[in-house]
Structures are given as C-alpha cells and as structure tokens.
C-alpha cells in the first residue's frame, strides 16, 4: 500500500473521527483528506481509509463511486466544471462550455495532453443568480460569458 496519511493529517482525521459515535461516519471527510494530500483519490487511498475506519475496501469503493465531486486519478491540475443545468443553460452555458472546449482543444470529460486541464459539465452549483457559473478547482467563477473564457484559461496557464 503506497498511500499513508501524513502524521498531521492522521491526527486531524482522528480528531474528526471523534466527532461521531461511529467511526464509519468519518468516511466522507477521510476521503476528502486523502484527496487533499494526493490530489486525487485512488485505490490505495481507499484501502488505507478502509483500514483506519475498520470497514471493508469494497464498502469504501462503493461509497466513493456514489459521489461525483472527488477527484479521480488522471484529473488535470485545473479541473474546469461548467454548470449546464437549466438556469445556467438559459444564460448561455452551452456557449461557455464550447468556448472552453475550443480554447483547450478537448471535449467533455477529457484532459489536455500536458495534464493541465480537465473539462467537465456538471449539475447546478447553486449559483444560478450569477450564471453562467464554472467551478475551477475550489473556486466559483461567476457571470462567465464565452468572451471571458480565453482570459480565464490564460490566467490558469500562467498560474500553472
């Protein structure tokens, strides 16, 4: 097993586990910590989490696959998630998505060859008042229009 929590993270996880009467309840937070440490959640991390929480790896995998928001291995450094649900669609989400696709030269659920960008379409981000909303990594970029896309991508490239 190649994934192990750093001692600090392990201590934080133990503190989190203590918030619940059952260890298992810390499963979602534990996966978050694994994601935070490694940049994504892989099988090794899931096995490690299973061992700490005293559940089977299959249980962890089953839970993990239910949720769409964890980063899977192979995700680019910048995860661009364009909201495509109705309120954003009414304000031109399709055009924003196409602009990202064109700018990055990739399609839906694809990653650029240099591993910098992954492009996804997602469901409502609860920011419909500032449509079109795009989540890039942890941040919401709001009021996005197709003409802003090139600038957004350029800034991300420079940030690396």
């Amino acid at each position, binding site marked *: 097993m190649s994934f192990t929590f750093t001692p600090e993270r392990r201590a934080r996880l133990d503190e989190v586990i203590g918030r619940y009467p059952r260890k*298992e*309840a810390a499963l979602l937070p534990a*996966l978050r910590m694994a994601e935070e440490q490694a940049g994504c959640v892989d099988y090794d991390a899931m096995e490690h989490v299973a061992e700490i929480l005293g559940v089977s790896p299959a249980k962890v995998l089953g839970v993990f696959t239910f949720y769409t928001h964890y980063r899977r291995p192979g995700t680019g450094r910048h995860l661009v998630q364009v909201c495509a649900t*109705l309120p954003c669609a009414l304000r031109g989400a399709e055009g924003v998505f196409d602009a990202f696709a064109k700018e990055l030269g990739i399609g839906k659920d694809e990653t650029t060859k240099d591993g910098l960008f992954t492009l996804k379409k997602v469901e409502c981000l609860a920011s419909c008042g500032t449509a079109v909303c795009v989540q890039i990594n942890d*941040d919401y970029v709001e009021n996005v229009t197709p003409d802003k896309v090139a600038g957004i991508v350029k800034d991300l490239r420079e940030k690396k």
Partner: protein
Amino acid sequence: MAAYEPVLLKYANQPGMHTLEAYLSHGGYGAAKKALGMKPVELIQAVKDSGLRGRGGAGFPTGLKWGFVPPVEKVPGPRYLCVNADESEPGTFKDRYIMEGDPHELLEGIVITCWAIGANTAYIYIRGEFVKSARILERAVEEAYRHGAFGPNVLGSGFKLECSVHRGAGAYICGEETGLLTSLEGGRGYPRIKPPFPAVVGLFGQPTIINNVETIANVPHIVERGAAWFKSIGPAEDPGPKLYCISGHVKKPGYYEGPMGVTIRSLIHDYAGGMIDERPLKAIIAGGSSCPWIAPDKIDTCLGFESLKKVKTMFGSAGTIILNDSVCVVDAMWNILRFYAHESCGQCTPCREGTGWLAKIFERIELGGGREDDIATILDICDNMRGKTICVLSDAAAWPVQSILDVKNYPDAACFRPEVEAHIREKRCPMGKHAPTRAEGVKQHGRISPRLVT
C-alpha cells in the same frame, strides 16, 4: 414595493460581518442567552406561534416538527440536529449567502434549536462544491467554541453542545433529509423509507431534527423579537422574512430578501429589474426545478406555500426560474429531466428507470424523432413515478412534465402542450434549437448518465 427592513441579511451584505467580533458588536448571541433561560417547551411553543415554516422545500411547520422528538423517558439516548446546507435544487442559491455573509446567525440558531430539542450534537451537512462557504463556517465554528457558544458549558448555562461541519461530495439526493442521514453516517446517500420519521429514528438510529439553513437562521430573530413580530411580516398564514432567488431571463438575477408573499410580478420587475430586452414572459417555475410550471397569467400570484398551492404549484425552496419566449419548452424540460436522471440514487425502479426514460424521450422529441404516442407514454411513465418510491425525487421529476402535458390535472399549464405536439408532428424543433440528429445531441450533451448506456 413596500418598505421592508431586512432581517436575515441585515448584516450579511456588509463586508467583514462574518467574524465573531462583528456579530457580537450588534448584540450577537443575545438571543441564545435568552433562549437558554427559557424552558425547551416554551421555545417550541414560540416557534409554533410564529408560524415559521421550513425553508428547505416542503414548508413543514418548524415548531410542530421539533415537537415530534419523543421525551427521553420514551426514547433514551442522544438527540441530533442536522442542518441541511446541501442547497442543490436547481434555481436555489440562498443558504450560501447566509453562511458566507453571517455564519454566526446560523450558529446562534443552532444553539437555540439544540436547546429546544435536547440535542447535544449538531452537524452542518454542506454540499462539497461549497468550499469557500465551508471554510468560512469552519472558522466561525472555531470562534464560537472560543466564545463558549459551543462546548461543555454553553454561554455559562451548563448545557453541553458540540457542533461541526460535514462536507458532502456532489450528490443532489443528499439534500433529501434521509439521504442526508445515510450520507452523514458514511454511506451512499440512499434515502430511507418513512415512517419511522427522523424525529423518532434518525441519525445513528436516534431522534433527529433536520432543518434548512434559512429556517434555523430565522430562529434567533423569533426568540429576540417574539412570535407576534414574526407573524406580522407578510401574510398571516405564511409569515416571516424570506430570501428569494430569481434566475433566468431577468435583468438582475440574484437573491433578494423581502417579506413572504411578494408577488411574482414584483419579484421580476421591482427586485430583478424586469425581463431581459423586455421580451415576453413564457413560463414561470416558481420554487425550483421540481415545481410544476405555471403560465404567465399567474404572474400576480404571491410567493408563498399556501398561495402557490392554489395555482397548482409549490414554493419549494424559493428558486424562481423565469423563462422568456426564446425558450423551447421541450429543450428546457429535457435539461431538467437530464438532471433528475443523473441524480436519481437508483434504489427504486420507477425513479431509476422513469427519470432516464423521460429524459431520453424528451431528447428524442427535441432532436426530431418524436412519435405519435409519445405524450401518452410520457404521462403513463409519470403516473408510475408518483407516490410509489422511497423519496419524492421521483415525484419531483414527474411534476413539471405532467404540468405541461396533463390537461385534466393542470388545465392552465397545459397551454405548453401544443408546443410539444408541434415538435412531434413536424419531427423537428420548431424553434430551431438543436442539431436535428440524435448523435449530434449526444455529442453535445453527453450521455444522460453513465449507467444509462445509449
């Protein structure tokens, strides 16, 4: 628009108000102190008297819900409060602004609610995408511990209360109260059969109250200013301050605070600056994507749980979506259905299959493959999806569809039906919205969901 003094967002819109210091500077945690000097039954009565109804979707009377927690003599062991900050109904985006702008308002509400229901532990379940809100909340929780609002001796009262933030990971169904519970316990977010209701058998099998963020944020104000004051805001049957969300084809989409009972017309024109380019209104989705649609002639209806029921729709989570005449009804409905097909947890056959079938049929009609019997098939599927499943996501997917097609039960909203019929008859989108082939559509939008291989 009558003069209205904001309550919930009074401070939230001022920068820097998310800190404890700022909160204390305008009397923060005073209501919690007052509440801790009251008996829990008195508090529950005050909330009942105020007429506060849940702001998460169902509009259930909050005081009544709290009263369902059984006495310790009957059901021993811990009680829990789960704050629902999953905010995932399309069109809804209000809780986030409370959490980011004035998190201590929510935390003070948590202290009072926990005292009222006898809970020593509170979890705030927040959707995973809200990274910023979660950080702000976590900081506020730390501050509240330091202030003594949480911990072994809450504000010197001897009451013990632990509170933490629990992040979800992207699943609409975890906003459904029992789905939230299974998710919090570390499982896939599968809803549970009710009864038993969570107030009796909830988190970790113990009595649990689940309330929406905005609901809880109202509580300190009720304690501070009294039930009569609360009841005097908006219609007496449906009172209180309210955060409205308006999105779609209006000039100034966004969230606005007003009294309950603002009319749809006022929300569009007085708050949101009117329709974009003055284009005509085509359809109103009053309370979030799950609600039956209503026709433009209902524009003078008040936004409230009771008033919207009268025009055969719902107030839901106050996510009003405004559609102008550029919208293709079939295209918009396909979008909504794709959402439900994606978010169905898959436990119940009518929901798992029904949402997928509906999405596929609407997709086919939009892309020029409509068949004569499609509408009958759609209504038949909807019939099978309603009232037959573990949770109401299935009903929520069927409601909007039925509203535009079922002439008998929705005579007004069925004014949208001829447009669907025209798609089927002409075998194309009369509004010219889409490339006319299935393959193109799939390329543009992707498959509905990974498990619905097309």
